[in-house]
């Protein structure tokens, strides 16, 4: 039976409350089991040998000495990971990223791996592997990579989306264009046109827990993988495909996760761990060092972006264009396309065009990072928006309100919006006390807006009622931000029972149907939807059982406040049956009581936020401190407000780090210079003010409770909000992120003419 996903306004009992999360105590006391916390009898230590070169041909790998070392049980290279992808280039890219195939494509690219009885032996074995490299020219800068004559990263990549079809390989893998109207005509109508170029440096998600897994492949070809991941079902499908295993015969269990932010949506060393285990016929544990995490996993793109906005003196935008060049690492991807799609999504524009280029470089393969691609585009667009407002003498908030998208707006990336939150978040900015607070010397205020699509996807949930009436909720989306608490609230709300009566668990891949990953802010949205339907299905069973116990027709039984109630003249005097009473009788009324749901949760509901930021800049050192920060975002419906606020704050904190200090620094040799938390400077606690939040609730019409994803949008506005605040504080406009002290001081000195 198709489920009705449409929003219904209702008075909630539990939704919107803040009970304690079930995993909290284990996490703060060290009891929780993360990726590196699993052990198996006879397990080996797996280590990976990585390329020191940004780009090199691998002439030969001699593993013979390592194999002979006592205690070494397996050595693998790409020869042990044959290409089973049957022409699927995207899958082959994943495999090639896990283990170089004849060419090292970036500093840190895996070239071989060993499994040994202990770490000491494994380290010794790595040193015994001799790799004969022929160093090739490399390119790490996105603009350099686009120039004619740049070293070609992949000779099989020809630019798509351009006419005529190119006949020479290029580092530009694709060009994508979005928009509508006639931008030339629009610019011709403008009173003022502002045109600016921006650059953003590459950043890492910076999750505290490094990648870790325990792989065990049996001689019959079946196996198990314990891993820190945002999506164990996807990991299972990809690993089994790459290794030629049957999907049903690889059981993947997701550990507790110490942060992912997109970086754990992708396999890195997990297929290698499985290959080592298969070859050694022993369980193999691989735990990455921080150096490996930085050099070989997860960063987001560095970018180079041009924005042009034309405006009437009354504040109406007549045309807007952007060209966005995103560096993807050595494999084709869609990050520039996403940047182009998100760039003008906040505004209602008659004439708009954005063009995204995806560009290959000799840097690690880029993967998702919280609202991937949107923060850089927003930095460029929202910085320019504030510049335009200043040019026409208009308040930057009023200027945005005048041009904000609303219900019915044709979005620059194609769809027509339903009810959305950009206008309400801007109105909330306007009314927020933060906007009226006094600023001191060298202090300034900035604001900026952000957008993210949100995602729904495949979801599958089980709800089982125990003999004592407690409820096991089994979901397949990894809990990265408190979703077990939120989903328990939803199950309890539907069933009409207390929160404590529900225990939510994350199932392994052998215990539940396929679930898409916890990405795209989908965890609470989609598993929440499946939980509602599973609970409603369980209620149907509960009603049937009550009817059976009373021996009356099921249509005469209603479910209210956690109890079955008989209705109608002839049954109305029957005493109610509680969920506990029905559960206790289950063995004699038809067996276990459960509800299930499988759904493709469509129409996740787009998300908007507006941020306000105050900074203080030291004009003599360029050092910048964020002194006040406010996040205002539409949540649709906040199921557990603590974790909604936590997402708002976490995204803002990551955005602040990105804006001010975080960056991948490459040397002339193409090697990463700062592969550690000492010199890759994420903010420490004392760097941040308390991040204030305001949750707006504009219901998503396509979710029974009105939920929208909330996990990502909060990282989108900070780069521009801080840039605008720095400009307000000391009068210089930074067009290069991070706005590190040397960059700010240089801009100040140039402005002072010294």
């Amino acid at each position, binding site marked *: 039976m198709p489920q009705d996903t449409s929003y219904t306004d209702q008075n909630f009992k539990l939704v919107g409350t803040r009970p304690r999360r079930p995993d909290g105590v284990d996490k703060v006391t060290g009891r929780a089991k993360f990726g590196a916390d699993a052990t198996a009898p006879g397990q080996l230590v797996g280590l990976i040998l990585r390329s020191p070169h940004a780009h090199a041909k691998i002439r030969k790998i001699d593993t013979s000495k390592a194999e002979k070392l006592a205690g070494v049980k397996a050595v693998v290279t790409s020869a042990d990971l044959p290409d089973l992808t049957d022409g699927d280039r995207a899958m082959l890219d994943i495999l090639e990223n896990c283990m170089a195939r004849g060419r090292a494509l970036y500093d840190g690219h895996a070239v071989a791996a060993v499994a040994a009885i202990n770490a000491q032996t494994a380290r010794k074995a790595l040193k015994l592997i001799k790799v004969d490299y022929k160093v090739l020219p490399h390119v790490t800068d996105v603009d350099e990579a686009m120039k004619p004559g740049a070293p070609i990263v992949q000779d099989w990549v020809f630019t798509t989306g351009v006419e005529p079809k190119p006949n020479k390989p290029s580092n530009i893998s694709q060009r994508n264009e979005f928009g509508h109207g006639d931008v030339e005509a629009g610019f011709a109508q403008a009173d003022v046109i502002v045109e600016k170029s921006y650059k953003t440096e590459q950043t890492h998600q910076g999750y505290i827990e490094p990648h870790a897994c325990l792989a065990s492949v049996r001689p019959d070809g079946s196996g198990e993988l314990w891993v820190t991941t945002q999506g164990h079902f996807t990991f299972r499908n990809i690993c089994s495909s790459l290794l030629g295993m049957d999907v049903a015969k690889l059981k993947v269990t997701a550990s507790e996760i110490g942060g992912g932010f997109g970086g754990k949506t992708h396999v890195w060393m997990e297929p290698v761990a499985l290959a080592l285990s298969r070859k050694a016929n022993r369980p193999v544990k691989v735990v990455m060092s921080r*150096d490996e995490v930085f050099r070989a996993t997860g960063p987001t793109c560095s970018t180079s972006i041009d924005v042009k906005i034309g405006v009437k003196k009354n504040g109406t935008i007549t045309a807007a264009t952007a060209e966005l060049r995103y560096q993807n690492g050595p494999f084709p991807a869609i990050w520039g396309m996403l940047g182009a799609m998100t760039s003008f999504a906040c505004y209602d524009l008659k004439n708009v065009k954005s063009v995204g280029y995806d560009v290959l470089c000799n840097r690690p393969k880029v993967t998702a990072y919280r609202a991937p691609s949107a923060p850089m585009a927003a930095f460029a667009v929202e910085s320019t928006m504030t510049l335009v407002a200043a040019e026409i003498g208009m308040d930057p908030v009023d200027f945005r309100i005048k041009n904000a998208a609303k219900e019915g707006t044709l979005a620059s990336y194609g769809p027509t919006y339903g009810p959305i939150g950009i206008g309400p978040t801007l109105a909330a900015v306007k009314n927020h006390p933060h906007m009226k607070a006094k600023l001191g010397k060298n202090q300034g205020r900035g604001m900026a807006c952000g957008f993210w699509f949100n995602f729904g996807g495949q979801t599958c949930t089980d709800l089982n009622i125990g003999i004592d009436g407690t409820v096991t909720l089994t979901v397949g989306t990894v809990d990265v931000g408190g979703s077990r608490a939120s989903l328990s609230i939803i199950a309890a709300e539907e069933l009409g029972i207390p929160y404590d009566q529900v225990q939510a668990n994350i199932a392994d891949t052998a215990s539940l149907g396929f679930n898409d990953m916890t990405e795209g802010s989908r965890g609470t949205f989609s598993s929440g939807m499946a939980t509602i339907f599973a609970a409603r299905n369980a209620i149907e069973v509960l009603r049937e059982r009550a009817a059976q116990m009373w021996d009356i027709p099921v249509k005469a039984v209603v479910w209210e406040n956690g109890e079955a109630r008989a209705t109608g003249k002839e049954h109305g005097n029957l005493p109610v049956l509680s969920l506990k009473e029905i559960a206790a009788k289950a063995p004699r009324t038809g067996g276990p009581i459960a509800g299930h749901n499988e759904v493709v949760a469509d129409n996740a509901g787009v998300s908007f936020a507006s941020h306000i930021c105050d900074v203080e800049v030291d004009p003599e*050192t360029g*050092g910048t401190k964020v002194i006040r920060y406010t996040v205002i975002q539409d949540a649709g419906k906040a199921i557990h407000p603590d974790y909604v606020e936590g997402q708002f704050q976490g995204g803002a904190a990551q955005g602040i780090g990105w804006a001010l200090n975080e960056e991948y620094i490459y040397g002339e040799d193409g090697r990463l*210079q700062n592969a550690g938390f*000492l*010199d890759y*400077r994420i903010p420490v606690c004392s760097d941040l003010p308390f991040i204030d939040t305001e949750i707006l609730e504009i219901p998503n019409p396509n979710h029974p409770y009105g939920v929208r994803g909330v996990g990502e949008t909060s990282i989108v506005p900070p780069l521009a909000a801080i840039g605008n605040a720095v400009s307000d504080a000391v009068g210089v406009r930074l067009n290069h992120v991070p706005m590190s*002290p040397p960059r700010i*001081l*240089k801009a100040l000195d140039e402005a002072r003419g010294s």
Partner: protein
Amino acid sequence: MRFESPKTTREAVALLAKEKGSAYVLAGGTDLLVRMKTGLIEPDLVVDIKRISAMQSIKTTASGTRIGAAVSGAELGENKKLKKAWPGVVEATNLIGSDQIQGRCTMVGNLCNASPAADSVPALMAARAKAVVVGKNKRRTVAVEKIITGPGETSLAKGEIIEAIILPRRSTKSGDAFLRFIPRTEMDIAVVSAGISLTLARGVIKSARVALGAVAATPLLVPAAARAIIGTKLDDVALEKLAAACSAACKPIDDKRGTIEYRTKVVGVLACRAAKIAYQRAGDA
């Protein structure tokens, strides 16, 4: 790898002198263990000096204050007398790492690690501190600025060990200060730093020492910077000359932590700010 915990300096020196392979001294271990864990070094011998009583204490005598090599940053920070006498030195040492690191790290370890960016070293140099160096057959007292010879390099001979740091006794109306610039608020390595110690006579700077960190291959003592403020009341002209002398003395590099241009400019800014604090402290002393 062998691990030894001798009870006396003499035993420690003997162990280090005798070792044919690579030998390292362990005090707090906040640099050594990191290097071992990342595979940068594989010691044959590690000599733990924390059990040596001569290295565990802070003692003040007529000639000055002797701080044992195994005294942690946290212990210095809790020593009220020392904090009053040499606030700049204590503050500099307390900037190393985090609270957890402070419980382990030592000034002598910071000195022997010989980083150009070491936090405590410019403050010690400005304070005219001396190191008590013990070898197999002799014991010598060396100015701190003579210890570091290059990044990671010291003038200590094989088998030599620093037993203590001596801070001189100084006249009243003296003050010192240390400032470093980091892009974050803590848990970072100095991009530039400056330590200044000065003594006043009727409000005029009678003597001064200025030392800079992270602007050359070693921490730098800059006599020209001291001369720029001696004989002044730290007026704007003196401060300008101080900044210019500091910028002129430094020979920084471009690296992941900062640029030549940035370091050259900001070192003068920090020196002026540190001088103002030291001057204020001297006046209040």
